[in-house]
């Protein structure tokens, strides 16, 4: 990156943040300082950009990343109630990760599946027409699979 001009470096902010988030799952503090050094900008300039876009997160995501859509259609179909209930069930606010690092919850605005409202995205898989009950079943099945995986892992050792 050394041979680029200042303006070229500044253009690298968003792609670099995206790559960091892609590879680490979130934007840690150290990443902002490191990127500031790399791009010859101040930490504040990077943080300003990163905090502007909801897409960037500053906390470590859980093992399973749950995104609940609150776009217009999903909102009308009860997405907000779904979010509130899930938030209560997991005991965390949107944007946070459960203390056991298993789930992180995020509120998003439209995932492009309005016909399936209200939509929920769990680990990049879209689940349409979700209700509180179907979401609970979904999470329970994930828990079950995880337990099974752990057991077989423990057994094989």
């Amino acid at each position: 990156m050394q041979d680029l001009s200042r303006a070229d470096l500044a253009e690298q902010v968003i792609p670099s943040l995206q790559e960091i988030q892609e590879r680490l799952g979130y934007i840690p503090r150290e990443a902002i300082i490191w990127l500031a050094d790399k791009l010859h900008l101040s930490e504040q300039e990077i943080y300003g950009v990163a905090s502007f876009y909801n897409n960037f997160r500053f906390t470590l995501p859980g093992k399973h990343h749950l995104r609940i859509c609150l776009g217009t259609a999903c909102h009308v179909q009860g997405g907000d109630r779904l979010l509130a209930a899930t938030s209560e069930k997991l005991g965390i606010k949107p944007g946070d990760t459960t203390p056991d690092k298993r789930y992180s919850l995020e509120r998003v605005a439209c995932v492009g599946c309005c016909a399936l409202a209200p939509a929920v995205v769990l680990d990049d898989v879209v689940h349409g027409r979700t209700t509180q009950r179907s979401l609970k079943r979904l999470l329970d099945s994930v828990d079950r699979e995880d337990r099974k995986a752990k057991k077989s892992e423990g057994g094989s050792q």
Partner: protein
Amino acid sequence: MPSLTIDGKQIQFKEDGRTILDIAREEGIYIPTLCDHPDLPPHGGCRMCLVEVEGMKGFVTACTTPAKDNMIVDTTNDDLMKLKRNILQLLLIEHPSACVVCAEWNTCNEYRSQPFKSGLITGCSTCPSKASCELRDVVEYVGLDDLGFVPRYKEMPVEKDDPFFDRDYNICILCARCVRVCDEIRGTGAISFAKRGHETRVDTAFGNSHLDSGCWFCGACIDVCPTGALSPRMMKWHGTPDETVVTTCMLCGTGCQIEFDVKWDRIMASHPGSENSEPNRGHACVLGRFCIPSLMNAPDRLKIPTVRRDGVSIPVSWDEAYERIAEILNETTPGRIGFVGAPHLTTEAAYLLQKLARSAIGTSNVDFRGSGFASLVVRTLADTDSFAKVGSLRDLEKADWIIAVGGDFVKTHQVVAKSCYQAVARGAPLILIGEAGVNLKRWATEHIPLKAKAFSTILSQLAVGEEKLKGVKKQHAEHIKSVVSKGEGAIIFGSDILLANNPGEAMTALLRLAGDKGRIYPAFDQGNEVGAMIAGLQPDLLPGLTSVGASSVRSKFEALWGKEIKAGLSLEQMRMAASKGELDVLYVIDGSLLAKGFKKVKHVIYQSPFPSEWVNRASVILPAAGFVEDSGTVVNMEMKQLKLKQVTQPIGKSKQDWLILTELGRRLGSEGFKYKSPKKVAKELREFTKELDSGAIVEIESIRKAADWNPVYRGAILAERIRDLKTFIDALPERERPLSTESMDDFVKRLSEQEGANTQVKEAA
């Protein structure tokens, strides 16, 4: 000539990219603005400058629309005003503004000239910016009598943990002036907008303290803030000042023009002057912006002359003090008397000090503390007759390339750094030689991290255009050489250049490297080092930089002053002589002079505004005025003569240095001390400096060690007196770290190892 019409007024103008707002301002037509600032490029954020232009769709912002021929502009029609009122109402939802629409405002303003001191700002009457609020001006112009919406208080805690200023973002209107000035003008980027929508606020990364965010506390953000959101903690409650006076700051060699608020004949606050005053043009540094009032109003300033009798210092009148000094000086052989001036003396006072020594006493044992760098620079310039090569800060901003060597100017000369950044932001490559702070490293296109010892080597190599550069890889060396080979360059260099193996060689190489078109920028650490040199405050130089060895000039001075003149002892030679018991009297004008080595001196005469270790052993103490209480001239790093204007009366019974030296000269029975004002002194000195004649080349000994930044003023160590400055300076070492060179892959690997198995690390796509 193209012309346009604004509000029915036909205006002729030159089409050169100026905006409608610029033209309107020149014609005295007021268009309200909030985010616009003369220092900053147009932003178009506040929408207060909306105007209607015939033929253009909707309303356009006057600050971003270039004026064109035949435009018909309306700034005040009903639709516009209604729109502006609505925008303002939305803005005021989050700004405590009950006072803005209060019917009693005018009476309230008249009878309560000071704001109520309050931790929380709830309205104009409790706001420190009550007298100078731009938001209020706009509200008054647009005419708002109703808030229109339910107000919402943001309930953010007032931030008071950082040094020097308070920040109350509850009244911030998000005009982005502070963010822009910090980033685009000063090149620091210590603050930024964080988050968005209703949650938007000015913040540091992760809400860190400003000490951790890289803030230099230059105060530029406060100066551009249109509201009271940012305010200097020590200077915000004094109300309307009696008067404001502009004078030159002497705390470093930049020579900034600083504006002082005076009330009850005391300095209450200091601001950078207007954007038209050279060299700083509306900018300042942490010292000039925040430290001068605390320094000058310090309770322990020396106020009364004292004379030591039987080991006890006794307050006396000025006459008695002069009497005692005359006694001491008359009973001593001239060769055993030494005079140590301060780099903070005015040129006039420096001239008088050496005149006192040479004409009234008959010794050339004169020098000033920290003269090494000025001595190197001024003598080399005089020898090569290249004073014209020294550039002004305005030139620096237009440089095609910059070399910075021998100092961290972002720390020590923040205003110089600002000009440097302006060039960098325009695209000028910056080559940094030696170690420096994070800011300079981020601005630099090439960084050569050499030790100071090697400065002379690399500068010579660059100047001569050698194939290889010491400690630089071939590819980079070629880049550097191609950069410095064309265009008008600028070389900023600091006093660390004295640490080079051969400072003289480094200095000559610098001049050669700058070439015919380039300019050099010596960053002097103290107020008037150049002035003291020109005034002849050197053992081997006479006024006008003539060597004592040049017999024709010397005989002229000998005839004038009636005493034989020969080269005297430099400060270090005086110290040597004193330690051998060969110096009996030392006249100390700079309290920051280290007393080490001067133990055997019988009498010390101490003249300073501040007490120091010299006070305990001085036979006579003369209280001098500080630079804001003095008048005269100083020469700054641009080699320009700047005026020092008296802001307040000297504190207590203290007197200005020039006056003390004049009265003392008269008391010693010398003829040539009949000055009534510093102007008369300056006139006399001008006779000798008309043509700066070059003297003999003198070997310069390097006696300096690289020291941490620790601003002093004549015995006063600023950080010891100003708690906030100490906090700031103590936090600085934390910033000194190398820029990371890790690649993305390495960084991701390190982080994921740190975080443990929980992170899902993916390979690069």
